[in-house]
């Protein structure tokens, strides 16, 4: 730990500021920001609940993924606006886009009827990307859990069997029902209980297989055409890599991998991102050879960071280097995604 200079706050009794006006009503409560406008969240809802007369779907700027935000980027013609919107989260209300200087008032006026901070029901491709991403994260957890079970490390595998239920399942439950996927929470919870209490039981293997099949089955309800479309799959890949990036950063302390769980999480996400890319790589190579080259190179560089499910003694790359690689993949994916969405619009 570094030692820093000392601030010495000498506030002796004599030096203390005294306030003469004692009968103050709490005027001190004035907000420091000049925005005393009263756009409450409730009001925003009211103006937005008109449905069914061709009004555009709303996008929640607090939660939307990049490709959804691209709609604003395209409409306003502001380069990298999507990233800028994400970077300025959280927003208390749509007007915060202006208050936080993400866009100008004039620009806001052009998109304001599509912006919300309320929970939105996703539709169309955004909904599928969201669904697939959540299942993809589950896959990542299970991939690394499998590796650890194979290494006869059930104790280390257990949290990764737990994460899909604990962190993800509730978030996707509604969609599973809607898409008529048989619930598999019970399967996952049963597996976790078993690994905790009786990891040597032969049933672990069969239950594990059943869990993986459940997730695969849930993914399979997405139309084949969607699951093989580069522009779609790349959105999912980038979401997975984004999580991997945060987890990897959280795994490292003092130049060592201090948190094995977070290291393993990030490994699982990258493994599955790789799997997904394999399925579309020849198509990307054909349609966008340059982007493909950049993505492929960065992905293989990235994969080296996780040589095994057991963390290496010394990190292969720093979090900054990992972020850089992931950014490169994201930027090149964007080219492919943009291309495929313009094609779709034709």
């Amino acid at each position: 730990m570094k030692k820093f200079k000392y601030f010495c706050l000498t506030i002796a009794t004599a030096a203390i500021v005294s306030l003469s006006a004692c009968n103050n009503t709490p005027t001190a409560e004035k907000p420091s920001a000049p925005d005393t406008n009263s756009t409450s969240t409730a009001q925003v809802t009211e103006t937005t609940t008109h449905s069914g007369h061709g009004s555009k779907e709303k996008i929640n700027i607090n939660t939307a993924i990049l490709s959804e935000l691209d709609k604003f980027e395209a409409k306003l013609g502001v380069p990298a606006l999507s990233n800028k919107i994400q970077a300025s989260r959280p927003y208390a209300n749509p007007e915060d886009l202006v208050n936080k200087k993400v866009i100008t008032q004039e620009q806001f006026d052009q998109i304001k009827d599509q912006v919300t901070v309320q929970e939105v029901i996703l539709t169309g491709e955004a909904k599928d990307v969201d669904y697939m991403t959540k299942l993809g994260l589950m896959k990542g957890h299970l991939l690394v859990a499998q590796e650890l079970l194979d290494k006869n490390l059930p104790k280390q595998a257990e949290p990764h069997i737990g994460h899909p239920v604990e962190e993800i399942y509730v978030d996707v439950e509604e969609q599973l029902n809607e898409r008529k996927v048989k619930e598999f929470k019970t399967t996952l919870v049963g597996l976790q209980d078993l690994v905790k209490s009786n990891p040597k039981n032969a049933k672990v293997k069969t239950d594990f297989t059943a869990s993986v099949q459940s997730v695969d089955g849930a993914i399979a309800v997405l139309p084949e055409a969607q699951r093989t479309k580069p522009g779609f799959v790349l959105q999912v890949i980038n979401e997975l890599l984004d999580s991997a990036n945060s987890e990897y950063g959280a795994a490292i302390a003092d130049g060592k991998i201090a948190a094995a769980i977070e290291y393993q999480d990030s490994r699982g996400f990258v493994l599955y991102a790789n799997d997904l890319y394999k399925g579309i790589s020849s198509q990307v190579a054909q349609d966008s050879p340059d982007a493909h080259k950049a993505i492929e190179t960065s992905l293989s560089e990235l994969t080296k960071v996780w040589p095994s499910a057991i963390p290496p003694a010394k990190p292969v790359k720093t979090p900054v280097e990992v972020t850089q690689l992931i950014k490169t993949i994201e930027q090149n994916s964007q080219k492919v995604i943009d291309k495929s969405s313009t094609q779709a619009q034709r």
Partner: protein
Amino acid sequence: MPNNFVLGKEQLFSRRQLLKLGIWGAGFAGTAALWHTLNAHSKSIVKVPPLEIAATNQAVKPMQMLRNFDYGVVKQENGRTVREFQLTAGTSVIQLNSAVSYNVWDLNGRIPGPTLRAKQGERVRILFLNNAGHSHSLHFHGVHPAEMDGIRPVSNGSATIYEFDAEPYGVHLYHCHIEPVTRHIAKGLYGMFIIDPPTPRPPADEIVLVMAGYDVNDDSHNEYYAFNGLPHYFMDNPIPIYQNQLVRLYVLNIIEYDTAVTFHLHANFFDVYRSGMTMTPTEKTDVITMGIAERHILEFAFRYPGKYMFHPHQDAIAENGCMGQFEVITDKPSQT
């Protein structure tokens, strides 16, 4: 007699706002600290000794967080006072001692998270952004509708808004509620949430102490314990308070994995306001048992100068970092 401290003519600026201006100023909505002092009885003196605070870029700042309250940004909406708070979950590494560093999840770059403070009946709005990799959430103790209960995961990179009325008054808390909750709490996603009563409590030197444990090897057992984030910190850096000054401690036990701990104060007894939900003390003692997430207001004043320890009387826990001391400074008589 702990009561002569309130007599005086000037209204004193609490050291807290100066601290805020000096160190925290940039990051926090400042104005509000005034409110407390102003609302407090106007003819009173709260004496708070000068503090020597090591500036650090660590996420743990035990001394700074002692008297630091986040009152949010106040807005008037439809004739109501709304306090808007912003909490961002992130990741950082803290140094528990010279040999042990530990990855934590922080809130606004801090562990424990900021002590949020509102008044009963106000509207509270919390903008929560998760930049910490896993899914997380913020679950507030208090009374609110189910949708605002904060058990739904907020995925990495996204933000959500929790909004509810501040009720009832008391010392509450907030914490992440993603399973395993033990790990999500123990790695740092928690903080104190104070709702002040409609009639302010008498002026006092108000101090926040949060007891927490660190399970550094993921074995569901704490290796280290701390007040306000850093093991042993207040043993090496005693908390200065004035002799005969009423001290109001806001104490929270958020030690996971151990069923309960006590809070014990040396050479004194304190008045207990259970969960901070009463205006009159419910008991007087020098050891109070606190289960996980239990919190109370404890009031006392020291008659004699000197150093006095405080710690859980589970002495193993104390010796692994959960102990500290007050340094009682002589109250120089300023008038004849």
